[in-house]
């Protein structure tokens, strides 16, 4: 008897060890981004046809919705379905243009610190209550209230909305937040400092309004079931079977209901690409996101669309390392990598080579409308000969013949393949050996924070549509800098763009252009690798779906089925 129980204990121990040992294989191992960001482009066909046939869209999502509580939402799935069922002050329309939603219009004060939004009076919640300025005040206060435990609330509002920082640290009551309902339909927002991109924030999930009475009545259950959420957007959720799928139907009481064509959206949770492809081929679903080998298999199909995302991946180089502290060594690393082969052979999903710190089709010149990337052009080139020269020079300056560098990377299959490729590319430099160290996502973050790495394969997705979201990373002691890079000149440029030129969009934009050149070309802080893209199959009869660069991946408000 005693023997059996020791055996049991042993077995149980082995089982629990196995649990802990399994901590690898994180899905986001290949990038530190969050809430899914894509650039403004139409999926489906251009909106030429008109709705015909049954207006039902059948699609899949890659995971269960973690929560439908906008204050607590942090991931792409939650923001997608919040975006389909809710309207904020503004919403993202075609080409990432902001279009008025609950707000009819807004005014900005002379000093750019006070924003006054006039709300439409015909917007209602699905329980019949009107959507008022008080709903925004409640929601924003809730997002920064430390009691709520929101991650995005303080992240998006601190330093943006007046007193958010102090409130989220528990040093000030939430009522002091710089947001006021002047009357039911006038919302006044006080900013901490001029924020040129504030309007794009109002389309973000964390800034959605909430009906106080409803939220408080639901208590802890708010946002967890189809009947504990309240919508004010184009669709409402009628059924939510956890981990299995959910159903959205058109919200007939939506203020802009006449523009909404789809009667119903059925969403199933499907995590496996091959399964999605089989379901797509059998006609059960109308869209299927692809990965690696399936992109090649479906290459040439009219139904295959590549959706470019403004998510950037690059090598971080720790300047505290004696070799990587040398600018010529960093330039050699930038220059020796062949990015074309990386995206075409290793990733093979439509991703494009990255040649700067700002992705393409992300921000445009405020006057000419020209793309940031196009204006600054490629800031790095692949030139193995020149790279070798620079590297030799660097080694001479340091006084070394051989160097071994550790490359910290993700532990997914793709990440490992990519890092093996990078190792081979880098080792073209004479005297350099690279050791790849694959670790789980959380471990990579830990090593990044404590700067215990030499080279690191990392990524970043934007939080708002503005160059600042990428360029601000690299200021001295920036929370996510962690490269040891510190340049007074660079800091001064970013400072100038955000303060002195806060209300002069053109000058501000030009300052960012200059900063990017300094960052990549002169100081070679990072070695950009690629800009991510998603390849997806869309049935030809699905039209009018808009792809967004941030927040919800897709806008279904104007989508329709054309089965003629």
């Amino acid at each position, binding site marked *: 008897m005693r023997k059996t129980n020791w055996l049991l204990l042993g077995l149980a121990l082995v089982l629990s060890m196995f649990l802990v040992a399994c901590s690898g294989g994180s899905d986001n191992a290949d990038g530190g981004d969050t809430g899914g960001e894509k650039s403004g482009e139409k999926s489906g066909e251009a909106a030429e046809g008109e709705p015909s046939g049954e207006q039902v869209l059948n699609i899949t999502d890659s995971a269960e919705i973690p*929560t439908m509580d906008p204050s607590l939402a942090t991931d792409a799935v939650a923001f997608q379905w919040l975006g389909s069922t809710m309207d904020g002050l503004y919403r993202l329309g075609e080409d990432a243009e902001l279009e008025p939603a609950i707000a009819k219009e807004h005014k900005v004060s002379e000093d750019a610190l006070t924003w006054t939004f006039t709300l439409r009076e015909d917007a209602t919640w699905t329980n019949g209550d009107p959507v008022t300025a008080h709903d925004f005040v409640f929601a924003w206060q809730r997002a920064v209230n430390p009691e709520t435990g929101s991650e995005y609330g303080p992240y998006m509002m601190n330093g943006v909305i007046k007193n958010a920082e102090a409130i989220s640290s528990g040093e000030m009551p939430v009522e002091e937040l710089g947001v006021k309902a002047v009357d039911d339909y006038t919302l006044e927002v006080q900013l901490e400092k001029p924020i040129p991109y504030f309007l794009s924030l109002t389309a973000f999930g964390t800034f959605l309004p909430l009906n106080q009475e409803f939220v408080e009545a639901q208590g802890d259950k708010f946002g967890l079931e189809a009947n504990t959420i309240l919508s004010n957007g184009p669709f409402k959720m009628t059924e939510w079977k956890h981990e299995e799928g959910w159903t959205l139907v058109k919200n007939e009481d939506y203020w802009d209901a006449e523009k909404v064509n789809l009667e119903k959206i059925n969403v199933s949770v499907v995590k496996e690409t091959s399964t999605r492809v089989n379901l797509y081929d059998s006609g059960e679903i109308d869209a299927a996101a692809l990965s690696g080998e399936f992109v090649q298999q479906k290459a040439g199909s009219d139904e295959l669309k590549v959706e470019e995302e403004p998510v950037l991946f690059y090598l971080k180089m720790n300047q505290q390392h004696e070799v990587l502290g040398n600018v010529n060594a960093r330039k050699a690393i930038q220059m020796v990598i062949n990015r074309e082969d990386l995206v075409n052979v290793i990733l093979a999903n439509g991703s494009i080579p990255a040649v700067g710190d700002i992705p393409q089709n992300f921000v445009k010149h405020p006057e000419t409308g020209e793309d940031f990337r196009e204006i600054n052009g490629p800031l790095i080139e692949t030139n193995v000969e020149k790279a070798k020269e620079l590297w030799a020079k660097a080694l001479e300056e340091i006084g070394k013949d051989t160097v071994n560098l550790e490359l910290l990377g993700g532990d997914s299959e793709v990440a490992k393949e990519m890092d093996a490729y990078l190792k081979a590319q880098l080792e073209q430099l004479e005297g350099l050996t690279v050791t790849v160290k694959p670790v789980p996502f959380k471990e990579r973050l*830990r090593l990044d924070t404590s700067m215990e790495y030499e080279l690191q394969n990392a990524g970043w997705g934007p939080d708002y549509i503005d160059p600042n979201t990428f360029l601000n990373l690299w200021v001295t002691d920036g929370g996510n800098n962690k490269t040891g890079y510190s340049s007074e000149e660079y800091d001064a440029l970013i400072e100038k763009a955000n303060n002195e030129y806060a209300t002069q969009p053109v000058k501000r934009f030009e300052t960012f252009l200059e900063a990017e050149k300094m960052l990549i070309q002169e100081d070679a802080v990072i070695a950009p690798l690629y800009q991510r893209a998603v390849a997806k199959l869309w049935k030809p009869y699905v039209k009018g779906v808009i792809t967004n660069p941030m927040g919800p991946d897709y806008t279904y408000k104007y989508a329709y089925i054309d089965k003629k």
Partner: protein
Amino acid sequence: MARYIFQRVLYMFLTLVLIATFSFFLMKMLPGTPLTMEDKLSETQKEIILEKYGLDDPVPIQYLKYMAGLAQGDLGISFQFDNREVTDIILSRIGPSMQLGAQALLIGTALGMLLGLISAIYHNGFLDYSSTFVAVIGKSIPSFIFAGLLQYYVGLKLGWFPVALWGTWEHTVLPTIALAMFPIAIAARFMRTEMLEVLGSDFIQTARAKGVNKFGVVFKHGVRNALIPLVTVMGPLAISLMTGTLVIEKIFAVPGIGEQFVISITTNDFPIIMGTTLFFSFFFVFIILVIDLLYGIIDPRIRLAEGEK
């Protein structure tokens, strides 16, 4: 017997407490926090949020708090699915996993036993070789290959059953078959080996000599004795099938618990890690108990031995 069961249940809980303790401290050695935006939040913000969830306490204090909650049947709330209770998550996900597991176990063992029986009876004949072949295939080819083939050919090309998703009984057919391949192979192998041994033993000779017909010999005397080793492997098999299989559930998009197990670890969702570990451990020790009791019913010798204690 009642005393025996009582004692076993007591040990069962002791085992669970030990598992909970070990898992808790091992889990706390994982790098990182359950925060989704760990890479973006400032240190101060992280601290504020961790404080709210009591994650800034020293680990032993966290452990005591957790165990106190556990004693009251409270498994806490999830981080990954904000505010959702761990108990709710486990209970809602375990249904599909158990259904598939149970179906696969029943069909798999029944078919496997039949195959093994045929093999044993027609020892070294054509039927033996063919059923051994089936068993070898079932054992050596991973279930996700079967799953993929079934989905593509039977689901997509022939269209006999749904390709994937969940809802009706038709949706369970393909995943059940894919899952059943392993138990078929295991049951067939054990059944064949045991039956060959049993059929060659003295008491079978005696039964034959007494004029019992072939059917009677095989079923009344043979099968029952061959079952004992099978029951031993059935326990762990039942557990692995019924606690959800990551791959099959992913391929057929089944809303089961299989993947939750792994995801909770990669996201540092501590309450779910503990919840699923304890749930599976409970299931495990419970099945072991049931198996031990089953032995007594199947094998009179074991029953007797227990009685002597």
